[in-house]
């Protein structure tokens, strides 16, 4: 008992510094530097708006991540439901008073930057469900009430995000939630049944999609049907990546991006520019960097004593993995175009904020890996 008390007591500042996962931290720093360089390239080799803005966000969010890391993971457990609830409120707020841009309403102006609450929901849902599965008795995991409860936790924000409309983020929210369900021990057959149901009802779901979303799916199936319209993005993206070759065209020499052929090069298509300039070698290198980050997070989860930390780390690791897979599959023409940023690399404050919060919690889990949570 004594030992546990000691473990549960707060660590000193130096102990925290000692327990910090430096490998993960360095990987995050490297990723940030790469993202800055690529942003510099999207600005045409000058320090312009996007580079400055991306840099200032890193300057704010990176210390924030460190700060979160020094908080005890216990507090995140305590406030997980509240955090989910607050983000839910923000979602509610933007669906009525949010900023509109290009046909969707998903932002709120915070003067310093424009917040997209749906991005935060990707983290909030993991926190919330991790806490739920941490607390619930294992026998009750597959009870009807439990299933209904967790499904509503996932469904309610998803409905709001879909109605913004934002298909990409809502898919990522659902997937993040499902991962926690999977790790929490929901029966495999439920997953199998729902997958089968989903596949069967897919044509039905598609009929409910907005025309532009249907168009994206059609375009994905055959990008050449409208090469200058709907298929333009994916064709140009493939050209950029394909023309990069083994070692790329060189930093600041990507003609596709430099000459404005690449759409959305700051945000969802940032990998395209990176891949054009740094080629296959650079792309695989970036993937390795991400892989190291993901495995580092999984390792932290495995080290953690509390199931809350485990659940959060594993789920977060797989969320990041899914973000990457969805984004890369999209730019490589393997999936239809759904808006989904590449973590840290893509320009955009909310996505970075959410990712940095996640990294912060993971680092906190590492520092407090011996912590148990009642």
């Amino acid at each position: 008992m004594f030992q546990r008390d000691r473990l549960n007591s707060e660590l000193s500042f130096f102990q925290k510094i000692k327990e910090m996962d430096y490998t993960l931290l360095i990987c995050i720093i490297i990723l940030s530097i790469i993202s800055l360089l690529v942003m510099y390239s999207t600005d045409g080799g000058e320090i312009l708006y996007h580079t400055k803005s991306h840099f200032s966000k890193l300057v704010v969010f990176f210390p924030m991540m460190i700060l979160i890391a020094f908080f005890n993971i216990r507090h995140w457990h305590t406030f997980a439901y509240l955090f989910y609830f607050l983000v839910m409120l923000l979602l509610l707020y933007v669906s009525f008073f949010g900023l509109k841009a290009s046909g969707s309403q998903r932002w709120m102006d915070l003067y310093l930057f424009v917040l997209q609450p749906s991005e935060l929901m990707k983290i909030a849902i993991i926190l919330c469900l991790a806490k739920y599965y941490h607390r619930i008795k294992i026998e009750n995991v597959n009870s009807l009430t439990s299933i209904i409860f967790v499904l509503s936790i996932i469904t309610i924000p998803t409905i709001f995000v879909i109605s913004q409309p934002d298909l990409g983020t809502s898919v990522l929210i659902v997937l993040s939630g499902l991962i926690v369900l999977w790790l929490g021990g929901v029966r495999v057959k439920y997953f199998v049944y729902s997958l089968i149901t989903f596949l069967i009802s897919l044509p039905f779901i598609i009929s409910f999609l907005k025309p532009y979303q249907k168009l994206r799916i059609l375009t994905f199936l055959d990008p050449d049907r409208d090469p200058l319209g709907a298929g333009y993005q994916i064709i140009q993206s493939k050209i950029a990546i394909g023309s990069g070759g083994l070692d790329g065209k060189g930093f600041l020499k990507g003609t596709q991006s430099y000459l404005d052929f690449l759409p959305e090069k700051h945000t969802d298509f940032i990998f395209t520019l990176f891949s054009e300039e740094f080629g296959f070698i650079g792309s695989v290198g970036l993937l390795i960097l991400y892989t190291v980050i993901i495995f580092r997070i999984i390792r932290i989860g495995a080290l953690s004593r509390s199931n809350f930390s485990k659940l959060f780390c594993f789920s977060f690791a797989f969320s990041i993995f899914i973000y990457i897979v969805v984004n890369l599959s999209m730019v490589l023409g393997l999936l239809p175009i759904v808006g989904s940023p590449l973590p840290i690399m893509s320009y955009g404050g909310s996505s970075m904020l959410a990712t940095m919060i996640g990294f912060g919690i993971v680092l906190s889990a590492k520092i407090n890996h011996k912590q148990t949570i009642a």
Partner: protein
Amino acid sequence: MIKENLSIRKSDVINRRMFIIGAAKIVIFAGIVARLFSLQINENKKYLTLSDKNRIREWKLPPTRGNIVDYFGNIIAGNLKVYQLHIIPEQVENFNYLLVRLKNLLNLSEKKIQKIVKLKNKLKPWDSIIVSENLSWSQFLKVNNYLYDLVGVKPVMTISRNYPFSEMYTHVLGYVSQPNEEEILENDIVKERFVPGMKIGKLGLEKTLENQLIGTNAIQRYEVNAYGKRINQLEYQKGLQGSKIRLTVDTEVQKLSAELLSSKAGSISVMDIYTGDIIAMYSSPSYNPNLFLFGISQDEWQLIRNNPLKPLINKTLSGLYSPGSTIKPIVALSALENKIINPNFKVKCTGKTELYGQTFHCWKEKGHGFVSLKNAMKQSCDTYFYEIARLLGVDRLNVTAKKFGLGEKVLGDYFDNEKRGLFPNTNWKKNNLGKGWVLGETLITGIGQGYTQTTPLQLCLMTAQIANGGYKIKPKIIVNDDPLSLEQAKNSMELQSLQKSNTRLFNDPKNIRIVQEAMFSSTNEQFGTSYRSRIDDPKYQFAGKTGTAQVKRISKRERELDLKLEQIPYKDRDHALYVAYGPYKNPRYALSIIVEHGGSGSKAAAPMAKELFKLIIDRDELRDKQSNFENINI
């Protein structure tokens, strides 16, 4: 402890399930790497090409047309540097201010300004607007002086067609101008090479030889961005100038022809009787083809169009005239060849002859008395030719005339405005007019009136073929790759005279000689119709036949009045014609002259021949030296 156990059980579940998706993760990442590999390594070449296609765009520049030179290598259609003024709208700070400045600097009209504004709204902002296609040097200097104030203005130096002899060759060369849509679509080569500002041949040889003259585009390769804006130039590929075309014409002779016909309507053609080379071909009046290069002004166009002397008509090729008495050598030859008459055949001319109650007048009211063939030709006695035409019949005459090239195009496809003319026969009349031939028509056909219509070049060819001893020649205006030398031409004619080929136009060479002698006497013996225009020096001595083609039937009253030329209204005056060849002893050149409404051939046309032969024969030696042209540098 129970709680602890539960917690451990739960973490077992978590770890196990983590492992399952961990495996899935590796598979998926491997899939993405595989996709990257296929795009970047396997299909790299394909995408690299696509990327270049994206970023590199070609700009074609107008090709430089080939030069057209005369026989001596003088450029008669060349290219000139011109100064142009372009505006690049996206670089302009204040468009209205710029327009006001330019308007004052260059004296642009209000219309022009409106045109520029219209163009600006139509074009993309980086496409240049051509403000002026042809700035004078002083304008160009002015613009350059104020360039600091004219942001977005670009003075450009480019190449444009130029005709150094201005109107001298218009009817031969035609001119170039901007093509309309139809003209672009008609010609595949033009379609392929067309760029705004390019000009194509609209008329004459410029049009016919378009595909040889056009040249290939110079190509500028630029890197462009996704919106098509030029970022930087990557490459400049020079175009090839169009082929050089060498004509058979002699600018000096052409010049003299133009001088002789100045302020008159008419035509002069000169031809080499052996090689068929056209030495000169001038239709008067002419007009300046340089006016059309940058769009002719309405005023200038009206001036040309409304000129009563009709400068737009190429009289040499598309002017149709009654040959008048210039047909008489053919009538005489036909009668001799068909053995209707012999050289001693005589007719008594009383000034008129009657046929079925109709009177046919000789030009000489008093009559010529008894005339032989030679005298009839010399004095151009109409009664004699009425008689032999009557004996010969129009159908036999038609055969001879056709042989000598009447009623057929002379230069074939080179000029699309060339006319065939007409030499009638009985069938023609039946088929085309639905009436039977009347003998009276044969009579007037015999003196070159009636249905007969000939172009001046046909008359020239006819004369040349009489002069060379009766051999068919192929007239040409372009020096081909393998030109016939004089010796070769003569040899082949000698060969033909031995065998009966269709290029031999006679049965008995004696008959041709009789006609030649008659033409000689017409010019060189007293009472000959062109005796006053003769040259006694055998070096220049020529033989010819005058002609006076009636434009209007002469009424009885007019015949009695015997009006002076000046007293007759211009439109009603006779056309003056003259055909000739020389030097008589060793003939080389033939010519035909027509002066519209010039009065009599002997007064208006024959004197020109005298001037022409002097020059042509003086230049004969020079011309022979030039035949091996390619060895001479110009």
